[in-house]
Each structure stands twice: as C-alpha cells, then as structure tokens.
C-alpha cells in the first residue's frame, strides 16, 4: 500500500496549523496576563485585553473550517476524531483567552493599589496553571499520551491550592491587622484571579482529554484514573 495525500488531508493539515496558532495565542495570552499581574505591567495587561479578539476570530475560523470538512468530506476514524477534538479544543482555548483577559483586568485594578503584593499561593497557582496548559498543548502537539493522562488527573492539587489561598486570604479573628477596605478589595481581586487560574487548569485538563481521545479513540471524560487505565 502506498500512502498519498488527498485534498482532505491538505485541508486537515491546514486546520491543524490554525489550531496550533490558536494554541499558541491562548498560551501567550495566559503568560502575558500572569506576567502583567506579577510585575504590575499595565501595557502588557492592556495588550492581553486588546488581543483577545484574535483568539475569538480563530475560534470562528476553526469552527467554519471543521464544519466544511465534515459536510463535504465525511471523514472517518482518526480524521473524524481529530475534527471532533479540534471543535472541542477551540471552545476550551477561546475560554482560556477569556480567563487571561479576566486576569489582565484584575492586574490593572490591583495596579491601582501598589502597596499590596501578590500572595505566594497565588504565584504558585499561577505556575501550576501555566505548566498544566503548556503540558496539555505539548501532549496534543506531540501526541504524548502519558503526559495527557498526567494533566487530566491533577486537578486535586489545584483545588487544594485554591482552598489554601482562600483560607489564608480571610482575616483571622485574632489578627490585630486592620481589615481595611483596600485590603478587602485586594483579597477579592486575588480570589478572582485564583478562580480564573483554576478554570484555566480545568480547560487544560479538557485539552489533554481531547488529545487522548484523538489518539486513542477512547474518552477519559467522567472516568476515574483506574477506569481510564482499564479501558
């Protein structure tokens, strides 16, 4: 049997390229939003907000390309799984873009109160979410299934981090520190950033699951680790 490229495969390659561009844009948005928050970089935060339309446009473009291929070529097997995964990934990537905007907006607001600094837990959460997103995208790009499984199974750590951050943000009854309006506002911003980061982590886990489905043909959704291993 000799392999050959068809018009369908050229279209699929083009779609994959556009999806990889969207992956890079979403990852870049999260990176910039986190740096803007950590470094108090206002122009970078504004850049993230202004650039979000690019990610939205990519979602529309990918939707349109994928639907056209489905309607005209009726792909099967791996090609079909790639298309289904692509449509799902585009939704997750667009939402990741929105979460990056949300972090950038908080970065601008936190900037107005320069006396308050980012908590260590939030910095840790930032690292975990960024790492998870990078790993999920690598798992998809390189079809690295052990990595996909690892990302899709790590949500407990993130939840613990978020709970710890929430706990540490609340003023203790014994605390002598005045619970000023400014501090309350800062705490609220930090919690909203933490929420956005947790959601980014969740979307990264989804992307890892889509990559797994594309390669293996079986779904990891709503399965325990043991069920996923045994399927």
């Amino acid at each position, binding site marked *: 049997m*000799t*392999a*050959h490229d*068809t018009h369908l495969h050229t279209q699929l390659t083009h779609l994959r390229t556009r999806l990889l561009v969207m992956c890079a844009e979403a990852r870049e948005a999260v990176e910039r939003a986190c740096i803007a928050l950590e470094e108090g970089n206002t122009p970078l935060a504004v850049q993230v907000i202004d650039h979000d339309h690019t990610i939205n446009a990519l979602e529309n473009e990918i939707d349109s390309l994928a639907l056209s291929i489905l309607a005209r070529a009726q792909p*099967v*097997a*791996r*090609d079909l799984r790639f298309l289904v995964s692509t449509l799902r990934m585009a939704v997750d990537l667009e939402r990741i873009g929105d979460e990056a905007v949300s972090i950038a907006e908080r970065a601008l607001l936190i900037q107005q109160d320069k006396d308050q600094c980012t908590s260590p837990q939030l910095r840790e959460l930032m690292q975990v979410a960024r790492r998870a997103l990078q790993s999920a995208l690598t798992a998809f790009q390189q079809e690295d299934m052990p990595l996909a499984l690892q990302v899709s199974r790590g949500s407990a750590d993130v939840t613990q981090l978020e709970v710890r951050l929430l706990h540490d943000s609340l003023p203790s009854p014994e605390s002598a520190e005045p619970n000023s309006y400014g501090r309350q506002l800062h705490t609220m911003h930090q919690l909203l950033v933490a929420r956005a980061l947790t959601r980014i982590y969740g979307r990264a886990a989804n992307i890892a699951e889509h990559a797994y489905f594309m390669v293996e*043909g079986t779904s990891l959704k709503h399965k325990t680790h043991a069920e996923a291993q045994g399927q």
Partner: protein
Amino acid sequence: MTTQSNTGITTKNVQFYYSKHHALHDVSLDFPSNKVTALIGPSGCGKSTFLRCLNRMNDLIPGTRVEGSILLDGQDIYASSLDVVELRRRVGMVFQRPNPFPKTIFENVAYGLRVNGLANQTEIGDRVEAALKRAAIWQEVKDRLDASALGLSGGQQQRLCIARALAVEPEVLLMDEPASALDPIATQKIEESIHELKSHLTIIIVTHNMQQAARVSDYTAFFYMGTLVEHGETDTLFTRPAKKQTEDYITGRFG
C-alpha cells in the same frame, strides 16, 4: 409474510481460485442473522468474489475452485447433496446494474414464484404486492403493474429487482454494489429499504462507497488482496479501527 429470519452464514477458512490465481486466502467470517454486513476494500480485493461464493454464483465461471466451508444455518452449501436452485432461493442476490426482465412489472416479481411452482393467482398477486411493498416501490407502480419494467427509472428498476429477489422469501440477501449506478435520491431509497428489510433478512452488501457502508451496516469487513484484514462492528471500525491498514484505507491514505 416472512417472519424474522434466524439464518446466519458462517464461513471457515475459505480459499478461492480462478484457475491458478489464488483470489481468496483463508477467509473465516460470521454473518449474524437479521444484521447488515458490509464488505469493503479496493477493487480486486476479493469482496465480490467472496460474496458470490455465498450462493455459489462462482460455480458458473469455468475453472474456479472453492476450499473451506460455508455454512448456511449450519448446513454446508457446497455439499454434493445440496440443491443449488433451492440455495439461490434461500440466498437471493441483487446486482450492480438493475437487470429487469423484458416483461411487465408484475411478471418480473411473479416470475420466481411461478418457477418455484406457485400457481394460485390470488396468492401470487398477494405475494407480488407484499414484495413490492417491502422493496418500497409499491406506491410508485401499483397503478401500472401491467406496464413494461423497462420503462421504469434506474432507481425504480433496482427496487423492482429487490422486490423480485424478495418475492421468493429468501433468508439472506446478497447485494453487489446495489446503488453504484443510481442517483442520490434513488440511493437513499435503497438504503432505507435495507434498514427496513433487515428485520426479516440477513443482508450482506458489497460497496465501494465507504459512507454507504457506514450508513447501512451493523458490521463491516475490510478485504485487501484476497485477505480479510479486519471485521467488526461498523461503529467501531469507522471510528477506531484496530488495524493500520484499515485506517489507511477508510481515511483514503492509500489507493
């Protein structure tokens, strides 16, 4: 009216030769009753040859030879004691191009009944009507049963041929690319008929149209160079085939 068929076909280590050419290699396959099985593969892969083994149509080609066994409801169809005419009544066939007799619509369907010894005109009339209804063509021809079958469109002729095959109440229906010469509307009607008919029959269909195999069949078997490469549930084979060869073929990556 025929009730649900319990007849399935089992083939074991089937080899087929056109003189010295070894066309089928060791094909073992089960066709469950009341299910549609699609045979797919590139031209020359042996799928039509295999289909024709199932009602001994290859017997008509000089120099051919079959080895292994093919069991219809547990009975070896190549046994010397078997009545081949009766076999072909039980295992009907529809071909790529519609081939109606140059007779009336009614006589096309009644022909097989008369050949099988039925003489009662009322019963023949009832069975012709039932067959035309099951082939989903009754509404289009009921007012012109005495017209020539050759005046029907290609799609109608093919459904008439299906009715002709159904009239003698076969247990298995073999279809060799039954819609390849038809337009999309006629193709859709044939495919709808297949969905209806499988409650009464075991259907085995050869098709070059992958989407058609995916649409109509419960099971799919992929042949390549005379060998059965993969066989399984159609849902599985078209979403996550086990063999790379199958994946490459159904996704158009070789040919």
